[in-house]
């Protein structure tokens, strides 16, 4: 698996061969609490960088997941719904959707793990 990159809105991105897998970080999962439902985008949907891509419903609230990278949705993780507690337990193992990147250089704008950890310390 490629090295993860991170966003300020607490998504992680793993990109290989022009395809990015996107999920939520440990911090996001902890903040949301118990997840009870996810709404995933339709494959084929074209997303703009920073656009709303999916919704996570926790017991407490609904939260949007943004795609940090523009592209077309190629695939969604249909297995998530059958074991939602895994998102809370192992958030970095749970990708939500995959995007065929329009511009792979956008990845360089995202934070490395070290940068993200520093960012969390400042919150």
């Amino acid at each position: 698996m490629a090295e993860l990159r991170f966003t300020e809105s607490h998504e992680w991105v793993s990109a290989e061969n022009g395809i990015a897998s996107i999920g939520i970080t440990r911090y996001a999962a902890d903040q949301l609490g118990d997840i009870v439902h996810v709404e995933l985008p339709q494959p084929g949907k074209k997303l703009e960088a920073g656009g709303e891509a999916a919704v996570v419903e926790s017991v407490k609230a609904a939260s949007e997941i943004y795609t940090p990278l523009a592209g077309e949705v190629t695939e969604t993780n249909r297995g998530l719904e059958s074991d939602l507690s895994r998102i809370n337990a192992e958030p970095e193992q749970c990708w939500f959707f995959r995007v065929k990147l329009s511009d792979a250089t956008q990845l360089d704008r995202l934070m490395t793990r070290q940068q993200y950890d520093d960012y969390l310390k400042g919150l």
Partner: protein
Amino acid sequence: MAEPGSALKRTPLHALHVSLGARMVPFAGYEMPVQYRAGILNEHLHTRKSAGLFDVSHMGQAFLHGSDPARALELLTPADLAGLREGQMRYGLLLNAEGGIRDDFMVARLPGRPWLYLVVNAATKDSDFTFIACRLNDAITIEPQADRALLALQGPKAESVLSRHAEGAAPQTFLKVVEMTVAGASAIVSRSGYTGEDGFEISLAAGDAEYVARKLLAEPEVLPVGLGARDTLRLEAGLCLYGHDIDETTSPIEADLAWTIGKRRKMARDFPAAERIMGELMSGPRRKRVGLMLKDKTPAREGAELVDGAGAPAGRVTSGGFGPSAGAPIAMAYVAAEHAADGTELAAMVRGQARAAVVTPLPFVPHHYVRKSG
């Protein structure tokens, strides 16, 4: 809610919450635990199958003194309080002059005590106490109990847990109240709560609260439970949350709380806005609080608009989320009278999409109160 930057108050159990790993959030001017390490789902399910301990010390407790405080308080509520016997507790509504609900409350007459014990909501307690003091100035002296804590021990194992720490008989059935000793501390104990389960609410001196809470938490059946699960439990039980499901714009009849109006009071029509309220009772309110079950997995939360089959406005969700025991998204809503019948098909608008919902009898999960047998 406190103003940003203003200091939040703490309950006597604050240090205990922090030591238990609670996530603390602002609520009604207090720093309160929304969940502990187990998380809302586990805390909720544990309360339904075993026992949960809640800190509800933010709520407003008071003693009402006077020559006949029950009769006097009837000026502000349609509940039958004069008929409240010693050792009984009752749920009631504090009304404004228009018949809107200023607050909901629990009131009890303790065995051998001339005064009444009153519990109101945290967010409204100061205004309630001022309102009661001003309106009933001649008849009632209100003595707020800011130095008392309030614990709720809820769930099917609550009785067995309490019995291990009780000196004297605990209240035997739902809405009975006694003074007794719990883990060595003097307490007012009622068989009541906000979860739909059997259980107790334990009022005691602030200084005794942490010791007693630790004793109860040391029992293997008991988990600490935060406000997050308190909300999902009460929603499944169909119980109103003040400021959301009921407020000054809703009447007791619209709120489907006509059962809180005493028979004698209906006959006498001697409560605030009695003409309006009795009129709604006779000819039906224009809108009504109902339960809603969502047909797919997306919750409809507070504020979601409801539409009928033709897409016309039908009402609005006042509380909604995922019901862990119901296993589905559930909500309470106000709908126009013509949509209030059980089984009515509506749709909730969530992020621009219509989500099928059906009007469902409350509660979503059966109550497990211990009633008198035979």
